[in-house]
């Protein structure tokens, strides 16, 4: 339990760090984006909205920076991430609630699947070393060096658009209305296949490589020799003794790399115009929609932290050494 508590404390600390970074950065932006926005909106916004924007951007010169900071945190806890510039006056939180599920679905599922598949292949590659499996290594290395989004572009060229197998953009067919009926669900799944496959191919290779290396390192441990001496079946030694132990550093590696994965997969969304958070980030950057960019940064960071916590929980289950019973 001590392990878990320490991890939670760490994540809270990191969340605080992210929030603080978010607080200070806009104060570096020159000029007064809010004023120009207000000028454009010409009095359509009410004063409380203006006030929240001011707090967000620290333009309220009457308060000291400390007071601004606490006001900002208070705002966050109420779920107020400010108003988006491009979708003015829609609050950022509302904009995000539309796009977040798409990303969670696509990215979440493909990341987990690619980790599982990659790890499985890595176990085989590490165990049956020296056979044809070794030829897979250079291919996988090359694939893992390709930027995700470029692979997406290629995929679209080859398989989509104008009579291709897959739709080239969007999360669902333009004519279908989002709801939970079969039409929509099917359309959504269909549209997510190509992006998903792109992400899978790019990220899986990383896992294959690290799992393979861990298997090789673990294979020279004493308990593997003991397992062989015990006359256990090849499968049992490979799975219960080798893979089970090789998995541990990879699970922590997975947790740590979530931040990196997020970066890559966001780009896939851009390439496919997939209506997720990544695509939104792209548009927000182009439109200099600071509140939206900040909101996305926070949301992404917090999601990664939560995912990390899950991975830590799984690690706790897998490695008995982290559980200190009485």
């Amino acid at each position, binding site marked *: 339990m001590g392990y878990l508590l320490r991890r939670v404390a760490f994540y809270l600390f990191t969340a605080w760090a992210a929030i603080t970074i978010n607080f200070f950065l806009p104060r570096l932006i020159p000029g007064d984006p809010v004023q120009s926005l207000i000028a454009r909106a010409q009095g359509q916004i009410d004063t409380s909205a203006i006030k929240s924007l001011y707090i967000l951007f620290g333009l309220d010169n009457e308060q000291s920076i400390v007071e601004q900071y606490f006001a900002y945190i208070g705002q966050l806890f109420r779920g107020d991430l400010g108003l988006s510039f491009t979708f003015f006056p829609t609050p950022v939180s509302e904009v995000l609630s539309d796009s977040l599920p798409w990303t969670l679905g696509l990215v979440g599922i493909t990341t987990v699947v690619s980790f599982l598949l990659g790890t499985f292949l890595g176990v085989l590659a590490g165990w049956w070393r020296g056979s044809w499996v070794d030829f897979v290594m250079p291919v996988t290395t090359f694939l893992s060096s390709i930027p995700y989004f470029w692979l997406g572009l290629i995929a679209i060229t080859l398989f989509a658009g104008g009579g291709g197998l897959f739709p080239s953009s969007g999360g669902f067919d333009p004519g279908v209305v989002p709801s939970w009926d079969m039409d929509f669900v099917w359309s959504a799944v269909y549209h997510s296949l190509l992006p998903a496959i792109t992400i899978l191919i790019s990220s899986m290779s990383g896992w294959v490589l690290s799992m393979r290396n861990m298997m090789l390192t673990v294979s*020279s*441990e*004493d*308990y593997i*020799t*003991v*397992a*062989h*001496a*015990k*006359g*256990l*079946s090849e499968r*049992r030694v490979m799975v*219960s*003794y080798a893979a*089970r*132990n090789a998995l*541990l550093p990879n699970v922590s590696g997975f947790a740590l790399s979530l931040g990196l994965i997020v970066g890559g997969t966001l780009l896939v969304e851009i390439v496919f115009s997939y209506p997720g958070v990544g695509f939104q980030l792209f548009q927000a950057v182009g439109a200099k929609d600071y509140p939206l960019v900040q909101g996305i940064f926070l949301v992404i960071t917090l999601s990664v932290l939560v995912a990390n916590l899950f991975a830590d929980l799984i690690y706790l289950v*897998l*490695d*008995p*050494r982290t559980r200190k*019973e009485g």
Partner: protein
Amino acid sequence: MKEPVLEIKGLNVDYGLGEEAVHAVRDVDLTLHRGEVLGLAGESGSGKSTLAYGMLRLLPPPGVIRSGQVVYHPHDGEAVDLLSLSTAKLRRFRWAEVSIVFQGAMNSLNPVHTVSAQLCDVIAAHEPRTTATARRARAKDLLKLVGINADRLGSYPHQLSGGMRQRVMIAMALALEPRVVIMDEPTTALDVVMQRQILAQLVQLRERIGFSVLFITHDLSLLVEFSDRIAIMYGGRIVESARAADLYKQALHPYSDGLLHSFPALRGPRRELTGIPGSPPDLGAMPSGCAFHPRCPKAFDPCADTMPLLEAPTTHPGEDRNVACWLHAVERVRG
């Protein structure tokens, strides 16, 4: 004369292939008899562990068995050369007939499985028809055998002390009631008190179950107390083998003599502690002739030229011992 249960004939084990190969075990002949404790002593790098693991083909790459035979005589049925068994047959053979108690139990137990799982899985692998309950019951008995409480079945290796882990290894080695148990430095990593306890336990178990033991260690003093026969290894070869009492009374090979004089005797007349000057040979660059001659206080002419063979000493005819030293093959040198 007891019948042999394990006969090693002309075993050569290398690390690597071709010219760069290191010859770790050279032309070893060794016989383990039924019910006996055979001690195998030598410094690190002498090849004793390589011999033990090589026997069962457990050496990691780049280990290779170059030549030789390891003949096992089962209870009933024909003798079989372990080195000629197929992988599947070797797997069935391992642990059921010959098991190993590994050294450094710190890393020899799988850290993510409970003690019970590790005891039961070997039973399940060799006797698939047993039920889980029956296996657990046997695991409990095995732990009792080595003096560990049954509530430790659910513990993980990191929750056990060093001595306990070693006892679990011993229990595990006896799970299938093998005929031969190889013990590779089973007490080296433990403190002296624990060493004594574990050895006492081993003696008891042997009396009860009656397996033969190949006891490998660098600590000759343990062997003198504990074993029936002792074989000394140096530079990958057996240089002397004799009954424990005979060896203790008088070691014929200068190396064995040096080893005996490296530790104080608890009982009997006081002896001078000497030790052996120099360091063990580099297996990749062995001296010519007898491997020990650079360090030997009694080296003479033939020692640097020709390697002595492991044979009955001409100077002590009739005793059940072998030594590879020109001092004791004087007539053959002259004749």
